[in-house]
Protein backbone atom coordinates (compact mmCIF):
# COMPACT_ATOMS: atom_id res chain seq x y z
CA UNK A 1 0.00 0.00 0.00
CA UNK A 2 2.84 2.32 0.90
CA UNK A 3 4.46 1.66 -2.49
CA UNK A 4 1.27 2.55 -4.33
CA UNK A 5 0.98 5.71 -2.27
CA UNK A 6 4.59 6.67 -3.03
CA UNK A 7 4.11 5.92 -6.70
CA UNK A 8 1.01 8.06 -6.94
CA UNK A 9 2.56 10.92 -5.03
CA UNK A 10 5.74 10.87 -7.10
CA UNK A 11 4.07 10.50 -10.45
CA UNK A 12 1.05 12.70 -10.01
CA UNK A 13 1.53 15.23 -7.28
CA UNK A 14 5.15 15.94 -6.53
CA UNK A 15 6.47 18.74 -8.65
CA UNK A 16 9.28 18.10 -11.06
CA UNK A 17 12.34 20.18 -10.47
CA UNK A 18 14.50 21.62 -13.18
CA UNK A 19 17.54 23.74 -12.54
CA UNK A 20 18.36 26.48 -14.99
CA UNK A 21 21.98 27.49 -14.91
CA UNK A 22 23.34 30.41 -16.95
CA UNK A 23 26.28 32.69 -16.26
CA UNK A 24 25.24 34.75 -13.25
CA UNK A 25 21.71 33.40 -13.08
CA UNK A 26 20.64 30.17 -11.42
CA UNK A 27 17.09 29.26 -10.64
CA UNK A 28 15.03 26.20 -10.12
CA UNK A 29 11.60 25.56 -11.49
CA UNK A 30 9.06 23.36 -9.80
CA UNK A 31 6.15 22.27 -11.89
CA UNK A 32 3.37 19.86 -11.15
CA UNK A 33 2.05 17.51 -13.75
CA UNK A 34 -1.54 18.19 -12.81
CA UNK A 35 -3.01 21.37 -11.47
CA UNK A 36 -0.37 23.34 -13.40
CA UNK A 37 1.25 25.00 -10.44
CA UNK A 38 4.73 26.11 -11.14
CA UNK A 39 7.07 28.17 -9.06
CA UNK A 40 10.54 29.49 -9.57
CA UNK A 41 13.20 30.33 -7.06
CA UNK A 42 16.23 32.43 -7.84
CA UNK A 43 19.12 30.59 -6.24
CA UNK A 44 22.51 31.79 -5.09
CA UNK A 45 25.38 29.76 -3.73
CA UNK A 46 27.03 30.74 -0.47
CA UNK A 47 30.25 29.62 1.11
CA UNK A 48 29.57 27.42 4.11
CA UNK A 49 32.66 28.87 5.82
CA UNK A 50 31.29 32.40 5.51
CA UNK A 51 27.95 31.50 6.99
CA UNK A 52 29.66 29.55 9.75
CA UNK A 53 32.00 32.46 10.43
CA UNK A 54 29.02 34.81 10.82
CA UNK A 55 27.45 32.41 13.27
CA UNK A 56 30.68 31.89 15.21
CA UNK A 57 31.29 35.64 15.41
CA UNK A 58 27.73 36.11 16.67
CA UNK A 59 28.31 33.47 19.35
CA UNK A 60 31.57 35.17 20.36
CA UNK A 61 30.00 38.61 20.58
CA UNK A 62 26.46 37.91 21.75
CA UNK A 63 26.91 34.73 23.72
CA UNK A 64 25.65 31.28 22.72
CA UNK A 65 22.07 31.76 23.84
CA UNK A 66 21.43 35.06 22.10
CA UNK A 67 23.27 33.94 18.97
CA UNK A 68 21.21 30.73 18.83
CA UNK A 69 18.03 32.75 19.25
CA UNK A 70 19.11 35.07 16.41
CA UNK A 71 19.93 32.24 14.02
CA UNK A 72 16.79 30.35 14.94
CA UNK A 73 14.79 33.40 13.82
CA UNK A 74 16.82 33.73 10.62
CA UNK A 75 16.29 30.02 9.98
CA UNK A 76 12.57 30.15 10.65
CA UNK A 77 12.09 33.17 8.39
CA UNK A 78 14.14 31.31 5.78
CA UNK A 79 11.96 28.20 6.08
CA UNK A 80 8.74 30.17 5.74
CA UNK A 81 10.06 32.26 2.88
CA UNK A 82 11.29 29.12 1.12
CA UNK A 83 7.83 27.58 1.30
CA UNK A 84 6.08 30.78 0.23
CA UNK A 85 8.29 30.95 -2.84
CA UNK A 86 7.33 27.39 -3.66
CA UNK A 87 3.63 28.30 -3.31
CA UNK A 88 3.33 25.56 -0.73
CA UNK A 89 0.11 24.98 1.13
CA UNK A 90 -1.02 23.02 4.11
CA UNK A 91 -0.86 19.28 3.40
CA UNK A 92 -2.92 16.42 4.79
CA UNK A 93 -1.05 14.75 7.62
CA UNK A 94 -1.01 11.32 5.96
CA UNK A 95 1.33 12.61 3.24
CA UNK A 96 3.50 14.66 5.57
CA UNK A 97 6.35 12.08 5.73
CA UNK A 98 6.61 11.92 1.94
CA UNK A 99 6.38 15.69 1.55
CA UNK A 100 9.11 16.25 4.16
CA UNK A 101 11.32 13.69 2.45
CA UNK A 102 10.72 15.38 -0.91
CA UNK A 103 11.67 18.78 0.49
CA UNK A 104 14.76 17.39 2.21
CA UNK A 105 15.76 15.61 -1.02
CA UNK A 106 15.59 18.90 -2.85
CA UNK A 107 17.93 20.44 -0.32
CA UNK A 108 20.26 17.46 -0.33
CA UNK A 109 20.34 17.34 -4.12
CA UNK A 110 21.63 20.89 -4.17
CA UNK A 111 24.44 20.13 -1.75
CA UNK A 112 22.62 21.48 1.29
CA UNK A 113 23.18 18.25 3.17
CA UNK A 114 20.76 17.86 6.04
CA UNK A 115 19.00 15.17 8.00
CA UNK A 116 19.66 11.77 6.48
CA UNK A 117 16.60 10.48 8.34
CA UNK A 118 13.24 12.09 8.87
CA UNK A 119 10.78 10.36 11.19
CA UNK A 120 7.23 11.61 11.33
CA UNK A 121 4.87 10.70 14.15
CA UNK A 122 1.61 11.79 12.60
CA UNK A 123 -0.50 11.20 15.69
CA UNK A 124 1.64 13.33 17.94
CA UNK A 125 2.74 15.72 15.21
CA UNK A 126 6.40 15.23 16.09
CA UNK A 127 8.97 15.29 13.35
CA UNK A 128 12.51 14.17 14.13
CA UNK A 129 15.40 15.03 11.85
CA UNK A 130 18.55 13.07 12.44
CA UNK A 131 21.80 12.64 10.63
CA UNK A 132 25.39 13.71 10.72
CA UNK A 133 27.74 16.22 9.18
CA UNK A 134 24.97 18.69 8.36
CA UNK A 135 26.12 21.66 6.38
CA UNK A 136 26.94 24.78 8.45
CA UNK A 137 26.27 23.37 11.89
CA UNK A 138 29.05 20.80 11.47
CA UNK A 139 31.37 23.81 11.64
CA UNK A 140 29.62 25.81 14.34
CA UNK A 141 28.19 23.06 16.58
CA UNK A 142 25.03 25.16 16.62
CA UNK A 143 22.05 23.80 14.68
CA UNK A 144 19.76 26.73 15.50
CA UNK A 145 19.54 27.87 11.86
CA UNK A 146 18.55 24.39 10.78
CA UNK A 147 16.10 24.01 13.67
CA UNK A 148 14.50 27.34 12.77
CA UNK A 149 14.34 26.36 9.12
CA UNK A 150 12.63 23.06 9.93
CA UNK A 151 10.16 24.87 12.18
CA UNK A 152 9.39 27.41 9.46
CA UNK A 153 8.81 24.79 6.79
CA UNK A 154 6.59 22.67 9.04
CA UNK A 155 4.60 25.67 10.21
CA UNK A 156 3.55 26.26 6.59
CA UNK A 157 2.87 22.59 5.93
CA UNK A 158 0.80 22.02 9.04
CA UNK A 159 -0.95 25.38 8.97
CA UNK A 160 -0.02 26.14 12.57
CA UNK A 161 3.01 27.39 14.45
CA UNK A 162 5.68 24.76 14.96
CA UNK A 163 8.86 25.14 16.98
CA UNK A 164 11.96 22.99 17.02
CA UNK A 165 14.63 22.09 19.51
CA UNK A 166 18.03 20.62 18.99
CA UNK A 167 19.07 17.40 20.64
CA UNK A 168 22.48 17.08 19.05
CA UNK A 169 25.41 15.43 20.70
CA UNK A 170 28.87 14.38 19.64
CA UNK A 171 28.84 17.07 16.95
CA UNK A 172 29.01 16.60 13.97
CA UNK A 173 28.27 12.90 14.23
CA UNK A 174 24.86 12.89 15.88
CA UNK A 175 22.65 15.69 14.68
CA UNK A 176 19.08 15.68 15.94
CA UNK A 177 16.37 18.29 15.70
CA UNK A 178 12.85 17.69 16.95
CA UNK A 179 9.98 19.80 15.69
CA UNK A 180 6.61 19.85 17.44
CA UNK A 181 3.51 21.97 17.21
CA UNK A 182 2.94 22.14 20.96
CA UNK A 183 6.35 23.41 22.03
CA UNK A 184 6.34 26.84 23.69
CA UNK A 185 6.29 29.54 21.08
CA UNK A 186 9.71 31.03 20.39
CA UNK A 187 9.22 33.11 17.29
CA UNK A 188 6.40 33.67 14.86
CA UNK A 189 7.52 35.01 11.45
CA UNK A 190 5.59 37.79 9.78
CA UNK A 191 4.31 35.95 6.73
CA UNK A 192 3.21 39.13 4.98
CA UNK A 193 6.71 40.55 5.13
CA UNK A 194 8.17 37.26 3.87
CA UNK A 195 5.90 37.03 0.82
CA UNK A 196 7.92 37.57 -2.35
CA UNK A 197 7.65 40.97 -3.96
CA UNK A 198 5.05 41.23 -6.75
CA UNK A 199 7.88 41.87 -9.21
CA UNK A 200 9.94 38.92 -7.99
CA UNK A 201 9.28 36.86 -11.11
CA UNK A 202 9.82 39.66 -13.57
CA UNK A 203 13.09 40.81 -12.03
CA UNK A 204 14.71 37.50 -11.20
CA UNK A 205 13.94 35.40 -14.25
CA UNK A 206 14.90 37.53 -17.21
CA UNK A 207 13.82 36.37 -20.63
CA UNK A 208 15.89 36.59 -23.77
CA UNK A 209 19.19 37.02 -22.00
CA UNK A 210 21.84 37.05 -24.68
CA UNK A 211 23.98 33.95 -25.00
CA UNK A 212 27.09 34.30 -22.85
CA UNK A 213 28.63 30.86 -23.07
CA UNK A 214 32.10 32.37 -22.94
CA UNK A 215 31.47 33.48 -19.34
CA UNK A 216 31.85 31.37 -16.22
CA UNK A 217 28.81 29.57 -14.86
CA UNK A 218 28.11 26.94 -12.24
CA UNK A 219 27.96 24.25 -14.90
CA UNK A 220 31.22 25.40 -16.41
CA UNK A 221 32.89 25.38 -13.02
CA UNK A 222 31.75 21.76 -12.65
CA UNK A 223 33.02 20.82 -16.11
CA UNK A 224 36.35 22.43 -15.31
CA UNK A 225 36.38 20.60 -11.97
CA UNK A 226 36.53 23.79 -9.97
CA UNK A 227 33.35 22.62 -8.26
CA UNK A 228 33.22 18.98 -7.28
CA UNK A 229 30.80 16.89 -5.30
CA UNK A 230 32.24 15.36 -2.16
CA UNK A 231 31.35 11.86 -0.93
CA UNK A 232 28.93 13.37 1.56
CA UNK A 233 27.06 15.11 -1.26
CA UNK A 234 28.35 18.62 -0.64
CA UNK A 235 29.50 20.89 -3.43
CA UNK A 236 33.13 21.93 -3.01
CA UNK A 237 34.71 24.88 -4.74
CA UNK A 238 38.46 24.42 -4.54
CA UNK A 239 38.00 22.72 -1.19
CA UNK A 240 35.43 25.17 0.24
CA UNK A 241 31.93 23.81 0.70
CA UNK A 242 29.21 25.87 -0.95
CA UNK A 243 25.48 25.47 -0.59
CA UNK A 244 22.50 26.80 -2.51
CA UNK A 245 19.75 28.91 -1.04
CA UNK A 246 17.00 31.15 -2.37
CA UNK A 247 18.53 34.58 -2.70
CA UNK A 248 16.27 35.94 0.08
CA UNK A 249 18.60 34.39 2.62
CA UNK A 250 20.99 37.32 2.36
CA UNK A 251 18.22 39.82 3.09
CA UNK A 252 17.09 37.82 6.10
CA UNK A 253 20.61 37.71 7.52
CA UNK A 254 21.06 41.44 6.98
CA UNK A 255 17.62 42.29 8.37
CA UNK A 256 18.07 40.37 11.63
CA UNK A 257 21.52 41.75 12.32
CA UNK A 258 20.31 45.27 11.65
CA UNK A 259 17.33 44.75 13.93
CA UNK A 260 19.61 44.03 16.86
CA UNK A 261 21.93 46.86 15.82
CA UNK A 262 24.88 44.52 15.34
CA UNK A 263 25.75 44.80 11.67
CA UNK A 264 29.34 45.04 12.84
CA UNK A 265 29.27 41.29 13.57
CA UNK A 266 28.35 40.64 9.96
CA UNK A 267 31.05 43.01 8.73
CA UNK A 268 33.74 41.40 10.84
CA UNK A 269 32.83 37.85 9.89
CA UNK A 270 32.43 38.52 6.17
CA UNK A 271 35.68 40.42 5.87
CA UNK A 272 37.63 37.76 7.73
CA UNK A 273 36.17 34.78 5.88
CA UNK A 274 36.29 36.46 2.45
CA UNK A 275 39.95 37.25 2.97
CA UNK A 276 40.70 33.63 3.80
CA UNK A 277 38.71 32.26 0.86
CA UNK A 278 40.04 34.67 -1.73
CA UNK A 279 43.61 34.25 -0.53
CA UNK A 280 43.28 30.50 -1.05
CA UNK A 281 41.56 30.76 -4.43
CA UNK A 282 44.01 33.29 -5.78
CA UNK A 283 47.26 32.20 -4.15
CA UNK A 284 48.87 31.48 -7.52
CA UNK A 285 47.86 34.87 -8.92
CA UNK A 286 49.51 37.83 -7.22
CA UNK A 287 48.30 40.39 -9.78
CA UNK A 288 45.30 42.50 -8.82
CA UNK A 289 43.69 42.10 -12.23
CA UNK A 290 43.75 38.31 -11.89
CA UNK A 291 42.21 38.45 -8.43
CA UNK A 292 39.44 40.69 -9.77
CA UNK A 293 38.87 38.14 -12.53
CA UNK A 294 38.49 35.45 -9.92
CA UNK A 295 35.92 37.57 -8.06
CA UNK A 296 33.93 38.21 -11.23
CA UNK A 297 34.03 34.49 -12.09
CA UNK A 298 32.78 33.66 -8.61
CA UNK A 299 29.91 36.12 -8.95
CA UNK A 300 28.97 34.47 -12.25
CA UNK A 301 29.34 30.88 -11.12
CA UNK A 302 27.50 31.32 -7.83
CA UNK A 303 24.49 33.00 -9.42
CA UNK A 304 24.95 36.57 -8.19
CA UNK A 305 24.55 38.25 -11.57
CA UNK A 306 26.75 39.24 -14.49
CA UNK A 307 29.46 41.64 -13.31
CA UNK A 308 31.59 44.15 -15.07
CA UNK A 309 34.36 45.86 -13.12
CA UNK A 310 35.84 49.26 -13.90
CA UNK A 311 38.70 50.77 -11.94
CA UNK A 312 39.81 54.37 -12.33
CA UNK A 313 42.31 55.66 -9.82
CA UNK A 314 40.89 55.29 -6.35
CA UNK A 315 37.39 54.40 -7.56
CA UNK A 316 36.16 50.89 -8.33
CA UNK A 317 32.79 50.41 -9.96
CA UNK A 318 30.93 47.16 -10.34
CA UNK A 319 28.00 46.96 -12.71
CA UNK A 320 26.09 43.78 -12.10
CA UNK A 321 23.42 42.85 -14.63
CA UNK A 322 20.58 40.57 -13.60
CA UNK A 323 21.44 40.51 -9.88
CA UNK A 324 19.10 38.54 -7.64
CA UNK A 325 16.39 41.02 -6.66
CA UNK A 326 14.82 40.99 -3.21
CA UNK A 327 12.50 43.27 -1.27
CA UNK A 328 15.19 44.54 1.05
CA UNK A 329 17.75 45.56 -1.50
CA UNK A 330 21.39 44.75 -2.02
CA UNK A 331 23.17 45.67 1.16
CA UNK A 332 24.45 42.14 1.78
CA UNK A 333 25.82 41.89 -1.78
CA UNK A 334 27.49 45.27 -1.41
CA UNK A 335 29.08 44.17 1.84
CA UNK A 336 30.19 40.82 0.44
CA UNK A 337 31.80 42.42 -2.59
CA UNK A 338 33.48 45.00 -0.36
CA UNK A 339 34.91 42.15 1.69
CA UNK A 340 36.39 40.47 -1.40
CA UNK A 341 37.78 43.72 -2.79
CA UNK A 342 39.29 44.59 0.55
CA UNK A 343 41.04 41.23 0.48
CA UNK A 344 42.45 42.02 -2.97
CA UNK A 345 43.78 45.45 -2.05
CA UNK A 346 44.56 44.52 1.57
CA UNK A 347 42.76 47.58 2.88
CA UNK A 348 39.14 48.33 3.65
CA UNK A 349 37.21 50.07 0.92
CA UNK A 350 34.26 52.37 1.40
CA UNK A 351 30.95 51.90 -0.38
CA UNK A 352 30.18 55.32 -1.84
CA UNK A 353 27.24 54.45 -4.03
CA UNK A 354 24.65 51.71 -4.30
CA UNK A 355 22.14 52.15 -7.09
CA UNK A 356 19.78 49.69 -8.68
CA UNK A 357 17.30 49.78 -11.49
CA UNK A 358 14.68 47.33 -12.62
CA UNK A 359 14.57 47.84 -16.32
CA UNK A 360 16.91 46.46 -17.37
CA UNK A 361 17.87 44.82 -14.05
CA UNK A 362 21.13 46.37 -12.94
CA UNK A 363 23.02 46.97 -9.73
CA UNK A 364 25.75 49.59 -9.58
CA UNK A 365 28.22 49.53 -6.71
CA UNK A 366 30.93 52.14 -6.33
CA UNK A 367 33.78 51.78 -3.86
CA UNK A 368 36.65 54.03 -3.01
CA UNK A 369 39.83 53.65 -1.01
Amino acid sequence: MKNIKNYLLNKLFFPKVAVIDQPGIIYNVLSRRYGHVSSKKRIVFLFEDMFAEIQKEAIAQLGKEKASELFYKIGKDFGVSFMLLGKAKKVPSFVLPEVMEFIADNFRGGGFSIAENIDVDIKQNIITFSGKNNVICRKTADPSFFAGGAAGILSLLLGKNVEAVSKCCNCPNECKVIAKADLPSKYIPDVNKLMPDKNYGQLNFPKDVESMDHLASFGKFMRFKKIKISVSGKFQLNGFAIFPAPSQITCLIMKHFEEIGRRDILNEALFRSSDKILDTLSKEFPEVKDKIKIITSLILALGWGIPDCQKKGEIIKFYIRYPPFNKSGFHYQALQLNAFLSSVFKKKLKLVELKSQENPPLLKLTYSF
Partner: protein
Amino acid sequence: MMAIMRESTGIRKFDSMLEGGFPKGSVIGLTGPPGIGKSIFNLHFILEGARLNQKCVFISLEEPRSNIDRMIQQFEFADEFYRYEKKKKIIIKCMDYQEYEKAYFSIFNIINKDKKIERLVIDSFNVFFASLISVDAGTNSNELAARRMINKSFSLLRRDNLTTLIVLEKLDNHKVHYSYNIPYMVDGIVSMDFLSLGAIERMIFIPKMRWTNQYKESISYDISSKGIKILQEEE
Protein backbone atom coordinates in the same frame (compact mmCIF):
# COMPACT_ATOMS: atom_id res chain seq x y z
CA MET B 1 29.76 -8.40 -33.42
CA MET B 2 31.42 -6.20 -36.02
CA ALA B 3 34.05 -3.86 -34.66
CA ILE B 4 33.47 -0.19 -35.45
CA MET B 5 36.14 1.19 -37.75
CA ARG B 6 37.56 4.43 -36.51
CA GLU B 7 39.36 7.44 -37.87
CA SER B 8 42.15 8.86 -35.76
CA THR B 9 41.78 12.56 -35.01
CA GLY B 10 45.54 13.06 -35.18
CA ILE B 11 45.67 13.84 -31.46
CA ARG B 12 46.76 10.59 -29.81
CA LYS B 13 45.50 11.14 -26.29
CA PHE B 14 42.22 12.42 -27.63
CA ASP B 15 41.85 9.26 -29.71
CA SER B 16 42.18 7.24 -26.53
CA MET B 17 39.15 9.14 -25.14
CA LEU B 18 37.22 7.85 -28.16
CA GLU B 19 38.22 4.19 -28.29
CA GLY B 20 40.61 5.03 -31.12
CA GLY B 21 38.91 7.86 -32.98
CA PHE B 22 35.69 9.00 -34.63
CA PRO B 23 33.48 6.21 -36.00
CA LYS B 24 34.18 5.96 -39.70
CA GLY B 25 31.39 7.38 -41.80
CA SER B 26 30.07 9.60 -39.01
CA VAL B 27 29.27 13.30 -38.93
CA ILE B 28 30.81 15.00 -35.93
CA GLY B 29 30.00 18.48 -34.66
CA LEU B 30 32.77 20.58 -33.18
CA THR B 31 31.68 23.44 -30.94
CA GLY B 32 33.31 26.08 -28.84
CA PRO B 33 33.69 29.83 -28.48
CA PRO B 34 35.78 31.83 -30.97
CA GLY B 35 39.52 31.43 -30.63
CA ILE B 36 39.37 28.19 -28.66
CA GLY B 37 41.23 26.09 -31.21
CA LYS B 38 38.53 24.50 -33.36
CA SER B 39 40.38 25.29 -36.60
CA ILE B 40 43.56 23.79 -35.17
CA PHE B 41 41.62 20.64 -34.29
CA ASN B 42 40.45 20.58 -37.92
CA LEU B 43 44.06 20.77 -39.14
CA HIS B 44 45.03 17.77 -37.01
CA PHE B 45 42.11 15.78 -38.39
CA ILE B 46 42.91 16.63 -42.00
CA LEU B 47 46.65 16.07 -41.66
CA GLU B 48 46.16 12.70 -40.02
CA GLY B 49 43.97 11.58 -42.90
CA ALA B 50 46.63 12.62 -45.41
CA ARG B 51 49.26 10.69 -43.45
CA LEU B 52 47.02 7.63 -43.81
CA ASN B 53 46.93 8.19 -47.57
CA GLN B 54 43.32 9.40 -47.48
CA LYS B 55 41.96 12.21 -49.63
CA CYS B 56 40.96 15.05 -47.32
CA VAL B 57 39.02 18.23 -48.05
CA PHE B 58 38.96 21.30 -45.85
CA ILE B 59 36.25 23.81 -46.71
CA SER B 60 36.45 27.21 -45.10
CA LEU B 61 33.45 29.43 -45.38
CA GLU B 62 34.65 32.12 -43.04
CA GLU B 63 38.38 32.61 -43.39
CA PRO B 64 40.24 33.60 -46.53
CA ARG B 65 43.13 31.41 -47.71
CA SER B 66 45.68 33.89 -46.36
CA ASN B 67 44.32 33.48 -42.83
CA ILE B 68 44.34 29.68 -43.14
CA ASP B 69 47.99 29.85 -44.25
CA ARG B 70 48.90 32.11 -41.34
CA MET B 71 47.33 29.60 -39.01
CA ILE B 72 49.09 26.56 -40.54
CA GLN B 73 52.48 28.30 -40.51
CA GLN B 74 52.36 28.70 -36.72
CA PHE B 75 52.87 24.97 -36.32
CA GLU B 76 55.78 22.60 -36.74
CA PHE B 77 53.70 20.40 -39.06
CA ALA B 78 53.28 23.23 -41.62
CA ASP B 79 55.82 21.84 -44.12
CA GLU B 80 54.30 18.39 -43.90
CA PHE B 81 50.83 19.86 -44.38
CA TYR B 82 51.85 21.72 -47.54
CA ARG B 83 53.62 18.62 -48.93
CA TYR B 84 50.36 16.71 -48.74
CA GLU B 85 48.53 19.60 -50.32
CA LYS B 86 50.98 19.49 -53.23
CA LYS B 87 50.31 15.79 -53.62
CA LYS B 88 46.57 16.58 -53.63
CA LYS B 89 45.98 14.52 -50.53
CA ILE B 90 44.78 17.70 -48.86
CA ILE B 91 42.49 20.08 -50.69
CA ILE B 92 41.68 23.43 -49.15
CA LYS B 93 38.75 25.32 -50.56
CA CYS B 94 37.90 28.78 -49.24
CA MET B 95 34.68 30.51 -50.14
CA ASP B 96 33.95 34.09 -49.39
CA TYR B 97 30.56 35.65 -48.58
CA GLN B 98 29.82 36.38 -52.22
CA GLU B 99 29.85 32.69 -52.97
CA TYR B 100 27.73 31.56 -50.05
CA GLU B 101 24.62 31.07 -52.11
CA LYS B 102 26.56 28.70 -54.35
CA ALA B 103 28.38 27.11 -51.42
CA TYR B 104 25.78 24.48 -50.69
CA PHE B 105 25.59 23.22 -54.27
CA SER B 106 29.29 23.54 -54.90
CA ILE B 107 30.29 21.61 -51.78
CA PHE B 108 27.90 18.77 -52.35
CA ASN B 109 28.87 18.65 -55.98
CA ILE B 110 32.45 18.02 -54.87
CA ILE B 111 31.40 15.29 -52.45
CA ASN B 112 29.09 13.59 -54.91
CA LYS B 113 31.57 13.56 -57.77
CA ASP B 114 34.64 12.51 -55.87
CA LYS B 115 33.91 9.31 -53.96
CA LYS B 116 37.55 9.06 -52.95
CA ILE B 117 37.21 11.83 -50.36
CA GLU B 118 37.45 10.14 -46.98
CA ARG B 119 37.74 13.12 -44.66
CA LEU B 120 35.86 16.38 -44.88
CA VAL B 121 35.88 19.46 -42.70
CA ILE B 122 33.29 22.22 -43.09
CA ASP B 123 34.11 25.37 -41.15
CA SER B 124 31.54 26.52 -40.31
CA PHE B 125 28.32 24.66 -40.94
CA ASN B 126 26.16 27.58 -39.82
CA VAL B 127 27.33 29.71 -42.69
CA PHE B 128 25.53 27.36 -45.09
CA PHE B 129 22.31 28.93 -44.08
CA ALA B 130 23.41 32.54 -43.76
CA SER B 131 22.20 33.45 -47.20
CA LEU B 132 18.90 31.65 -46.88
CA ILE B 133 17.64 32.77 -43.57
CA SER B 134 17.62 36.06 -41.80
CA VAL B 135 18.16 35.42 -38.08
CA ASP B 136 16.00 38.42 -37.26
CA ALA B 137 13.20 37.89 -39.74
CA GLY B 138 12.98 34.06 -39.77
CA THR B 139 9.98 33.64 -42.00
CA ASN B 140 8.23 30.29 -42.10
CA SER B 141 9.14 29.56 -45.70
CA ASN B 142 12.81 30.34 -45.08
CA GLU B 143 12.82 28.17 -41.98
CA LEU B 144 11.28 25.29 -43.86
CA ALA B 145 13.80 25.68 -46.67
CA ALA B 146 16.64 25.74 -44.16
CA ARG B 147 15.38 22.59 -42.45
CA ARG B 148 15.12 20.81 -45.78
CA MET B 149 18.63 21.83 -46.68
CA ILE B 150 20.02 20.65 -43.36
CA ASN B 151 18.31 17.30 -43.63
CA LYS B 152 19.47 16.85 -47.19
CA SER B 153 23.01 17.87 -46.25
CA PHE B 154 23.18 15.21 -43.60
CA SER B 155 21.87 12.54 -45.90
CA LEU B 156 24.55 13.48 -48.47
CA LEU B 157 27.30 13.51 -45.87
CA ARG B 158 26.45 10.08 -44.55
CA ARG B 159 28.51 7.95 -46.84
CA ASP B 160 30.31 4.83 -45.69
CA ASN B 161 33.85 5.93 -46.28
CA LEU B 162 33.41 9.64 -45.51
CA THR B 163 33.99 11.01 -42.03
CA THR B 164 32.95 14.61 -41.64
CA LEU B 165 33.80 17.21 -39.07
CA ILE B 166 31.49 20.23 -39.07
CA VAL B 167 32.17 23.30 -37.00
CA LEU B 168 29.06 24.52 -35.24
CA GLU B 169 29.41 28.13 -34.25
CA LYS B 170 27.10 29.22 -31.50
CA LEU B 171 24.76 31.87 -32.81
CA ASP B 172 23.78 34.78 -30.56
CA ASN B 173 20.26 33.53 -30.51
CA HIS B 174 20.38 30.05 -29.05
CA LYS B 175 16.87 29.36 -30.21
CA VAL B 176 17.83 29.68 -33.85
CA HIS B 177 20.73 27.31 -33.41
CA TYR B 178 18.80 24.62 -31.64
CA SER B 179 15.58 24.94 -33.55
CA TYR B 180 17.28 23.22 -36.48
CA ASN B 181 18.13 20.25 -34.24
CA ILE B 182 21.67 20.09 -35.53
CA PRO B 183 23.15 18.81 -32.23
CA TYR B 184 20.65 15.95 -32.37
CA MET B 185 21.42 15.06 -35.95
CA VAL B 186 25.18 14.75 -35.66
CA ASP B 187 26.65 11.43 -34.58
CA GLY B 188 28.95 13.03 -32.08
CA ILE B 189 29.83 16.33 -30.49
CA VAL B 190 33.24 17.53 -29.40
CA SER B 191 33.01 20.56 -27.20
CA MET B 192 35.93 22.88 -26.54
CA ASP B 193 35.69 25.51 -23.86
CA PHE B 194 37.77 27.81 -21.70
CA LEU B 195 37.56 29.26 -18.23
CA SER B 196 39.39 32.37 -17.18
CA LEU B 197 40.07 32.11 -13.47
CA GLY B 198 43.33 33.91 -13.01
CA ALA B 199 44.89 31.95 -15.84
CA ILE B 200 43.07 30.69 -18.93
CA GLU B 201 42.31 26.99 -18.81
CA ARG B 202 41.10 25.05 -21.78
CA MET B 203 39.04 21.90 -21.65
CA ILE B 204 37.78 19.47 -24.23
CA PHE B 205 34.71 17.38 -23.60
CA ILE B 206 32.78 14.75 -25.54
CA PRO B 207 29.11 15.09 -24.59
CA LYS B 208 27.96 12.72 -27.30
CA MET B 209 29.52 10.06 -29.53
CA ARG B 210 27.39 7.31 -31.00
CA TRP B 211 28.72 3.76 -31.04
CA THR B 212 31.46 4.76 -28.63
CA ASN B 213 32.14 4.40 -24.95
CA GLN B 214 33.73 7.82 -24.79
CA TYR B 215 35.61 9.32 -21.88
CA LYS B 216 32.97 11.05 -19.81
CA GLU B 217 35.00 13.72 -18.07
CA SER B 218 36.36 16.92 -19.53
CA ILE B 219 40.10 17.04 -19.96
CA SER B 220 42.56 19.93 -20.14
CA TYR B 221 44.46 20.78 -23.26
CA ASP B 222 46.97 23.35 -24.35
CA ILE B 223 48.07 24.80 -27.66
CA SER B 224 51.73 24.92 -28.60
CA SER B 225 53.84 24.91 -31.74
CA LYS B 226 52.95 21.23 -32.13
CA GLY B 227 49.24 22.01 -32.12
CA ILE B 228 46.74 20.75 -29.57
CA LYS B 229 48.18 18.79 -26.70
CA ILE B 230 45.98 16.93 -24.26
CA LEU B 231 47.36 17.44 -20.78
CA GLN B 232 47.84 14.53 -18.41
CA GLU B 233 45.14 14.39 -15.71
CA GLU B 234 46.35 15.04 -12.18
CA GLU B 235 46.10 12.07 -9.82
